[in-house]
């Protein structure tokens, strides 16, 4: 399994890329972390205006899911992240 963590500039207080103390919250070596100041990932997932920003969001994709011109379709997605631990675990168990 691989985890792609994208830190985005969403709030006015997001002055810059996350500091080491923030990055340390994701310590698993299966994770890869990115800084996305222009929210290119959010836009590729459908962001069109302020209200449609995609953030504090997690999605699960089965093995072999590619990402080409359009973003892949998730088998599970939910937000806010801190509230969806249980369905996320269930979705992960289903795709493993």
């Amino acid at each position: 399994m691989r985890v792609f963590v994208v830190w985005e500039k969403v709030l006015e207080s997001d002055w810059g890329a996350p500091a080491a103390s923030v990055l340390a919250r994701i310590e698993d070596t299966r994770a890869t972390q990115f800084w996305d100041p222009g929210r290119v990932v959010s836009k590729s997932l459908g962001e069109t205006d302020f209200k449609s920003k995609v953030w504090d969001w997690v999605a699960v994709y089965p093995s072999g899911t590619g990402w080409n011109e359009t973003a892949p379709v998730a088998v599970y997605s939910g937000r806010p992240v801190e509230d969806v631990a249980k369905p996320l675990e269930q979705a992960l168990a289903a795709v493993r």
Partner: protein
Amino acid sequence: MRGSLPCSKATAEQRGPVVILGMVRQRLKESTPIASSLAAIASIIAATTCCLPIGILWLAAATAGAGAVLDRYRLWLVGLSVALIAFGFWQARRARSCTPRRRRLNVALLLLSTFFVGASLLLPAYWTIGSHKVPSGQRDLRTLASAELLRAEWNAARGPKVLVLLSPT
């Protein structure tokens, strides 16, 4: 009208709920934007339970907390917080009818409010300024100028994938 502003008639014991609500507000503020707005409501309740300077104090703190929900208006809310604290100090200075003890308490609470509002202003710096080193075993943090870099890594990865989008603050 100098010296004619009302002073709190509440005793220290009666201020108990205000202090407790303030503590609840701080706890909530650390969790979620929704919690932050609940904390703001708690602060407003606190403001109604005591005299005006204390109300100003909590209102100032509440506007800083509400910034998480009303991020679009963050700069205005931050400005309002600072202005309310300044007004609180000005009012505390004018309230000559208060006992010295009561005035000291007002100033102490205003200083406490200044601390919390200041912390809420400076925390983004703590979360974003400085080293961007990732935990050991991970690839260095990279900036996405386009989705291409993520796509390349994504398509090269095997097994199930999880995508997480977060704000640093």
